[in-house]
């Protein structure tokens, strides 16, 4: 398997020491090293990653619909901007019926647009976001397109959708 990047193990160790049991799952030697935590601990973990571990850039926030009753998941890829680039991804699983994750907009300013996009396409609501409005789809669009159970409407404001 890919040899594990020493910086990532050091980072994971630091997080473990500070958060211990709150990190519910850890897999460092896969092709994509990640930690998993509960939505509640996420703002605290984000602040910790940014201030103490130097993860000053939130590279990417992907909202994934795990499908068949497994709920939605937000994957945060955070990185440090130092020369020797280290980064790790944090996965947070939320149930389908009430997908709420506290917003980390105050930690990384880029989370503002990412969370709006995740809300727009996958439908994860980010509590504490200053204006959680759709960013890519039209403001009055119904449904979240990237959910597996999404059926695209055949008419939008009278415009037929699929022109054969």
């Amino acid at each position, binding site marked *: *398997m*890919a040899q594990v990047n020493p910086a990532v193990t050091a980072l994971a160790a630091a997080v473990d020491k500070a958060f211990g049991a709150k990190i519910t799952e850890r897999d460092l030697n*896969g*092709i*994509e090293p990640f930690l998993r935590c509960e939505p509640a601990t996420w703002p605290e973990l984000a602040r910790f990653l940014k201030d103490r571990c130097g993860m*000053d*850039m*939130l*590279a*990417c926030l*992907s*909202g*994934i*619909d795990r499908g068949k009753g497994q709920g939605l998941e937000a*994957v945060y*890829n955070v990185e440090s*901007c130092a*020369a*020797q*680039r280290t980064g790790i*991804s944090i996965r947070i699983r939320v149930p389908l019926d009430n997908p709420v994750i506290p917003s980390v907009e105050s930690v*990384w*300013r*880029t989370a*503002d*647009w990412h969370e709006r996009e995740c809300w727009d*396409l996958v439908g994860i609501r980010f509590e504490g976001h200053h204006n959680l409005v*759709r*960013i*890519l*789809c*039209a403001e009055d669009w119904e449904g979240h*397109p*990237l959910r597996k159970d999404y059926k695209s409407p055949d008419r939008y404001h009278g415009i037929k959708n699929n022109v054969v």
Partner: protein
Amino acid sequence: MSSESPTTVVNAGDLRTEEMLLNMGPQHPATHGVLRVMVRTDGELVLDCEPHVGYLHRCFEKHCESVTTLQSVLYTDRLDYLTAMGNNWGFCMAVEKLYGDELVIPERAQYIRVICQELNRIASHLLAIGTYGMDIGAITPFLYCFREREKILTIFEHICGQRLNYNYIRPGGVAYDIDEGMLRLISEFCAYFGPKVDEYDDLLSTNDIFVQRTAHVGVLPVKTAIDFGCTGPVLRGSGVPRDLRKDQPYGIYDRFEFDVPVGSGERGTLGDCFDRYMVRVREMRESLRIVQQAVKGIPAGEIRSSKIKAKIRPPKGEAYTRIENSRGELGFYVVSEGKEVLYRVKCRAPSFHNISVLPEISRGAMVADLIAIIGSMDIVLGEVDR
């Protein structure tokens, strides 16, 4: 944070001016595509601006969930349509990462990928510089840049048959081989292009009116840049020497020696529009050096790894890869269930971040500066809206 540029005009006490809400875009000559900026202006001064995106949203990620992996490579061409090679490569690298270590890309394919990516970067920077000159008012450099870009597009037409949407880099290697004639065309272009970059310097970069219009304008401090996730020439313009080809060398970039141009505030403050522009001009020279080294060192051999069969079925797993595209760090988060169709593809577009920083740096600027700032960000709406 009003920029300390000398143009901040103090409003005299009794002079009561009303604010005006100006709707710039989505159909406007200088917004580089369908970007709409709601600008609150007081006369010529921009008090606040708010970019609205989404007018070019073609649900790329939804497409990738209904089309096979091989077919979604050509949808990545339409993301940053000015550096389609970079998008192809980013997506294919993510798919190849799913295969883990046993998939080895043949040497010749790696060299061809580097040549195509760097040529495409030059073409994209040429367009960035040309349109930036036009935003400031100088129309002739645009035509000169497009004359050079035309040569690169013809080279691509020889290599893969298309001028803009190449669909050339495939998971496991590249689609067709490069023969001697094409290599000769590329080295001819490199010899021709070297002095031309100096010409743009003399025509535009040293031009005093251009410098006056771009120095001290749209100053992006390092902290805001990192906080908003800006990458590429925008971040390097603010002095952060961060380039994925150097920090995390992917492909065979560690074999070429080139340096990373960084903004130094030579004509104005560090991180202003002029720095971002100069970083792009110097980056073109670096890319030219890489192409020359790659053309010299390209080995013979097959161009696609035999492990990837015709029907690409990436193994189950998730992978996030990033590539240094011409506008910044282009990331792909790919989730596969082992079927031919990928389960989920998320594209992290650099322009999405670069444009989100616009309100921060354009308060207190003038309307003409706002156009200069949007131009210096060099955004492509194809990848902002995906």
